[in-house]
């Protein structure tokens, strides 16, 4: 009967269709060379649409200069970046060039995922101290793209509206900061809140440095319970004096992005962020924002602020095109043409030559950051080394115990002890 034959051919067709679709899915992955004999280089990074456009533009310029290399950008948003990247690495499908940030660096470097880039990428124009943050056990696993400083952002006009006065940030203490915040809230009749709370480990790190302690001492926390408790008392006093929103609202806005922050919505006068967020916060609020030095403990010799790479470029240790990967990284770090496209999108350029070349083209917010960092340069402490493996979870751990304390569900003593125990367990492995 012919119906049997028909059935056979239909089944064959179905199988063929499936085979073709499967082939499409994995198409173009053949060994890292494209059909026209070019070397294919994969480059993964995260960020906004604006960053993707800039990066694609820089890649095009690179390809024009290196006609034998075809760079393929693998882009994702920040929230899913490490998920995607770790899955690719697990599947022996690591991109040749990867963007990493400092908390993830040791996770990858200490597991043999990254290649040593020393003497393969020209780093003569990168500040030596900043450069060493990308080195682990003497191997340069990562090259910093640019720098940031964790600092206090302020909306001066809101402070003035509340008839409060900004103190001199070279001198000011934590008590001044609390008093100012409380004054802004009361002076504005509660319409404007003084400051937003932050549980960023960088904030605690700055405070600890002022007390002469390290956040990380090797694979352990260098913090004492007293320091953590004193640090929490700043936030407790802010909540008590209404200089900051209550614990519930604080944890609610703490879980959102900077656009939804008090500063971003013009409902608060201060907040702490990495300096490259200044532009985003100013854009969200539509008003002028400035950077301030972090307050100090009375009599502290060091302000504790520090530069940290905004991001790193690193190369896969398994890459078949190590030389080309290094070449691409070198271009992204050192080429003024690339710098003129990327500007301060990955932090203020780490290469002093690139920075000098693009200085005047920077957006206003970044010019402000540059001026601020230049002025504060002498007061900064050395950039800290990359934190130990497991530090990716530090912000979550710190936030959790801070919330326990702010809601009064744990005593500061108890929480400080538990925080240290859990943090140590997380970074020991």
């Amino acid at each position: 009967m012919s119906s049997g034959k028909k059935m056979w051919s239909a089944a064959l067709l179905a199988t063929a269709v499936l085979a073709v679709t499967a082939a499409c899915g994995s198409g173009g992955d053949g060994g890292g060379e494209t059909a026209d004999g070019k070397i294919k280089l994969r480059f993964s990074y995260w960020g906004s649409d604006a960053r993707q456009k800039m990066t694609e533009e820089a890649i095009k310029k690179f390809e024009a200069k290196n006609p034998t290399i075809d760079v393929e950008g693998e882009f994702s948003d920040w929230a899913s970046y490490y998920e995607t990247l770790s899955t690719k690495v697990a599947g022996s499908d690591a991109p040749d060039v990867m963007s990493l940030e400092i908390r993830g660096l040791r996770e990858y470097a200490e597991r043999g995922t990254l290649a040593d880039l020393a003497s393969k990428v020209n780093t003569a124009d990168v500040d030596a101290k900043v450069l060493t943050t990308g080195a682990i056990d003497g191997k340069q696993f990562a090259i910093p793209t640019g720098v940031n400083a964790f600092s206090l952002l302020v909306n001066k006009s809101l402070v003035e509206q509340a008839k409060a006065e900004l103190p001199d940030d070279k001198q000011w203490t934590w008590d001044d900061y609390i008093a100012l915040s409380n004054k802004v809230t009361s002076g504005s009749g509660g319409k404007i809140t003084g400051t937003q709370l932050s549980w960023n480990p960088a904030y605690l790190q700055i405070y600890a440095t002022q007390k002469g302690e390290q956040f990380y001492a090797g694979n352990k926390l260098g913090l004492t319970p007293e320091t953590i408790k004193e640090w929490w008392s700043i936030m407790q006093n802010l909540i008590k004096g209404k200089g900051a929103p209550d614990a519930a609202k604080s944890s609610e806005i703490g879980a959102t992005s900077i656009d939804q922050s008090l500063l971003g919505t013009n409902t608060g006068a201060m907040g702490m962020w990495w300096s490259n967020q200044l532009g985003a916060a100013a854009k969200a609020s539509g008003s002028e924002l400035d950077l301030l030095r972090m307050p100090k403990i009375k009599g502290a010799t060091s302000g504790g602020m520090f530069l940290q790479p905004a991001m790193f470029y690193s190369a896969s240790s398994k890459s078949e095109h190590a030389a080309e990967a290094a070449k691409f990284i070198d271009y992204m770090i050192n080429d003024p043409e690339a710098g003129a496209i990327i500007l301060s999108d990955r932090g203020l350029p780490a290469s002093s030559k690139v920075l000098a070349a693009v200085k005047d083209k920077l957006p206003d917010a970044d010019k402000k950051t540059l001026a601020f960092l230049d002025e504060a340069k002498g007061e900064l402490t050395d950039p800290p080394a990359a934190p130990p493996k497991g530090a990716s979870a530090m912000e979550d751990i710190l936030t959790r115990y801070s919330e326990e304390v702010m809601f009064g569900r744990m005593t500061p003593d108890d929480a400080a002890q538990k925080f240290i125990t859990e943090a140590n367990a997380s970074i020991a492995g």
Partner: protein
Amino acid sequence: MTEVSVASGPAGGGHRSTQRSRREARAAYLFLAPWFVGLLVITIGPIFASLYLSFTDYSLLEEAKWVGLDNYTKMFTEDPRFLNSLQVTTIYVIVSVPLQLAFALALALVLDRGLRGLPIYRSIFYLPSLLGGSVAIAILWRKVFGADGLVNAVLSVFGIQGTGWVGHPDYALGTLILLHVWTFGAPMIIFLAGLRQIPSSYYEAAAVDGAGALRQFRSITLPLLTPIIFFNLVLELIKSFQSFTQAFIVSGGRGGPADSTLFYTLYLYLQGFKNYDMGYAAAMAWVLLLIIAGLTGVNFLASKYWVFYGDTK
């Protein structure tokens, strides 16, 4: 009935038809082959891989190292967050599933009265079920139950000053339970179908005997509806144990404030992708499977005592 059709198949024809049926069977298998391959490669393979990984220390970035039962023992002896996540999820399931089913049944009873425009109401009530698990609704929930959200705006009209509900460890889980109850549409539709199955003659007979509405509900509706209740219960229990999106979005991906919304699956995800401990995450997944399988088993055993199948006797 089934026996008859099976017997008549091969016995009915001679040599030629056997050949033909064999050929048809081969064609059928060929048709099915792509899906069998898919099932094997995409589902069954990974399931066994995850069973293996649950006995290893696996960071995703390095080769997996065999550690025996370490992951499982660590869960129950050294990890208070694991026990907390189990507790949070259990509270969520125990409170939200019965509430949701009660709500769904109540509305189904109202709609069963034969309202005009029933299809419209049905669609409106069903809508949240389609949207409930989505990211957009979770974001909306944040806004509605936020410190400056809609709920507090309404409360302030009555002179009550509300707190930030999603940001408070005592209430955050409550907002998620509400979100779950709000998605009562799917079980409601099933209840509605079940109610339609009950012959109206039963009610007529009961009315003649003088049974009131409440008595009718207790003696006719409820017993005849037990298979449907059971079905919904099993389905919703399994589904709510696996809830993830709502907690992930409402808590900003952390399970906060202070771990009060740390769902089991959220903690599993954090262990696997944030702490680079995929072996532990795999072990957690298997424990969850055992929990759900165990509960469903208990559910089926218990059903003998309260579920009434009208056609069995």
